């Protein structure tokens, strides 16, 4: 039996106060645009690609966040056409053909780190 472990590189993205309360901001890491969401109401952080796959617009970090359903699935709404995406798994909740990439994220001592698979 072979065990594979994935090594995650944690890269400093920004400071916690760079991201507005219950909102998002965009960072540039390794030439990727990443949207970071400060879900203050739940004490959670999320990170996704900044590109909305619907019309290829670099805008997701400017979208409104919230939750939906019985289990309060966290989501972000694209500011362009209000497609919504799950922040936990990247699935589009309004269009089955779309999905976005999500990133591991952690907040330590006022700093936000994004995880990249090694």
């Amino acid at each position, binding site marked *: 039996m072979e065990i594979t472990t994935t090594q995650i590189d944690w890269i400093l993205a920004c400071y916690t106060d760079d991201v507005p309360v*219950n909102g998002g901001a965009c960072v540039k890491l390794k030439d990727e645009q990443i949207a970071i969401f400060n879900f203050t109401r739940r004490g959670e952080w999320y990170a996704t690609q900044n590109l909305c796959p619907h019309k*290829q*617009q670099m*805008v997701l970090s*400017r979208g409104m*966040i919230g939750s939906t359903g019985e289990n309060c699935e966290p989501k972000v709404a694209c*500011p362009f056409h209000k497609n*919504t995406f799950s922040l936990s798994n990247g699935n589009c909740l309004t269009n089955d053909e779309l999905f976005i990439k999500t990133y591991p994220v952690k907040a330590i001592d006022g700093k936000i780190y994004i995880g990249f698979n090694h």
Partner: protein
Amino acid sequence: MKKPTIIVVGNGMVGYKFCEKLVTRSSDFNIIVFGEEPRHAYDRVHLSEYFNGKSADDLSLSAFSWYEENGIKLHLGDPIQEINRLDKTVHSLAGITFKYDYLLLATGSAPFVPNIPGVEKDGVFVYRTIEDLELMKSYASTVKTGAVMGGGLLGLEAAKALMDLGITNTHVIEFAPRLMPRQIDSAGSIMLQSKLKELGLTIHLNKSTSHIGGEHKIDALHFNDESVLAIDMLVISAGIRPRDELAKLSGLQVGTRGGIMVNEKMQTSDEDIYAIGECALYEGMIYGLVAPGYEMADIVVNQLTNGSKMFYGYDMSTKLKLIGVDVASFGDAFITEPDCRTIVFEDTHKGVYKRINISTDGKQLLGGILIGDADAYNMLLQTVNNKIVLPPNPEDLILGSRGGAESEGAGVMSLPDEALICSCEAVNKGAICASVTDLGITTIDGMKKCTKAGTGCGGCVPLVKDLIAGTMKANGQYIKNIICEHFDYSRQELFDLVKIGQIKNYDVVLDHFGKGDGCEVCKPVVASILSGLWNELIVKQDTIQDSNDRFLANIQKGGSYSVVPRIPGGEITPDKLIVIGTVAKKYKLYTKITGGQRIDMFGAHVNDLPAIWEELIEAGFESGHAYGKSLRTVKSCVGSTWCRFGLHDSVTFAIEIEERYKGIRSPHKLKGGVSGCVRECAEAQAKDFGIIATEKGWNLYVCGNGGSKPQHAQLLATDIDNNTLIKYLDRFLMFYIKTADPLTRTATWLNKMDGGMSYLKNVVVNDSLGICTQLEEEMQTLINTYHCEWKEVIDSPALRKRFTHFVNAPEEKDPAMQFETMREQLKAKW
């Protein structure tokens, strides 16, 4: 077998209704219709709305093509001149001769013009057809003082028409000692008089006119008591006379005072000839309302299709809004003690008079009169017609249950299934409830399509709504107009809750009244409510703002933003034009003139927005709020300053109004317009509020809309001065801000409003809800707390910092944004 031919003489409301009923019930007849008027049947009941923005087409009862689609031959502008009963033929004015098997006379009535010397003079009109209205309209433009002879139902309608035409000095002359003598008693008349007086009508009772003065055109009315009233225009509305001349000529029996005599089957003295509507005389009575006319049409259709339905008279109860005042009369309105017991409620402060007559044993309601507030009419009429046993305290019927737990809707559901709800279309309660339960109809529009209930006079619509809601509730499928899954309230309900709780923060609103974490639907709604109440700087809570409000600019393709400074009324100095040019050039912005007389600069990076605004504000510009659900622009024409036609200075007024309401957040965007004359170059009637100059002041129109479903604005007030106009606008806008659903423009808001324009007029002009002072104060608070959002941002380093694309590289712009050249400017490439 050859189909029998039925010829219908008259294409008014009742004649049309007959055709409609016959084709739905049978295809076994050839139908040929002759109409005297040049247009096909239209809604005469709502004739005065012709001056209120409705067109002749709007008033039509059907599309013109309807007749052909249903195999009906229609001859308009061609009255029947002669009936040959021996050959069973008719001859028309145009010389057409047709053979009939059955003939239906629906010739209606004509206005009765009393034989007063001078009635032939110019400026004397009758009020019956669209042609009459057009004649009045063209004459009225120069008229300052008008009068209506006749204070009955039609006379008061005609008085409203004169006021709608802009004749502010309008008089009503009545021969009897009270108004609407057939419907209401003296006390009711006194209340109605005082309400009408408030609205600017002058009422003269006990006046009989001796002659009409003037050379060729009218200049005065002379009365028998030797008094004189100087007027420029007169509308005679002294009753109706049945059009029975054709019947008389053909030897059919007519009444001594007019009317074609009919039996219970609506047959005339010739059994193949029927007569219905206002020309028919049944047991010595002419039924001058539309509902009995429709019932008569139904009887004839029933007879022709081998039914056995008969006519035995008709309930003449009526409810109407006269010049914005509710008037209703039902059952036996005039019966007096000792034959009954009477309960009267009178409130001279609000102008409400209610009288009910109950049987001496206190068990049955016999009839009554309602002035000023007729909400209870439908329920009271049902109580009379269905002989419902009265509660122990019958005064509750007009006073409402005080302190009791019973809700209002419960009463409707207690009616028997056969209770007639829509008397125009003869739809009973059972049919309406069955449509909800069996067919899943849940809207008033759906109900209109399905059962036709509410399509006649519209008076039963509130009752139908209650029945729909009541049935849905009984079936356990009650649906509420809620904001989203997080808030179980409508916008209006939440607005009130937030106000009472004095809450200023989204999360607190969510904690108090919602659940979950919110979403992209409720966040902007709450943001709009908070702005409508407290008008605080929206970027303080930037993450609950919708896409454009978040960065105080309109997000465009590629993620760039556009910038629109305010240019009030579209007036701008050359120096400011140069500043816009300079700024646009410096930041490589594409410029375009907008539809609202402003200049839009496109293609700004989010990083550049604060710097761009700093330069604009430095030059004296302010935010144009093009990004917000708020006042955009008040468009103006050049006005009297330059235009040779202009009556008033529309630009100055547009600027004043735009400055007044700038920055105020509303359920949706707001647009205004001010035109300096009726040529309407500012297209004000396509705006949420439109102002058009008149000789005497301004006319105010509201709830217009361009966009995908254009809708003309409707007249709210005429010939008002600047201060009154602003007062009405304050009330109107604040009422809209407080009560509209999210993202609902004023036009849609009005379309959904119970009672429509007359209700809105009552609230805004007559203060029927008693909230106008409060609305004005609330609006003043919003005006007093105005701030230019962009000025606040550029003055605050913390807020400026938010306008970056990469928070970890604030200087760097979004490299994904690309531009290319088009017609010497840059456009986004994507």
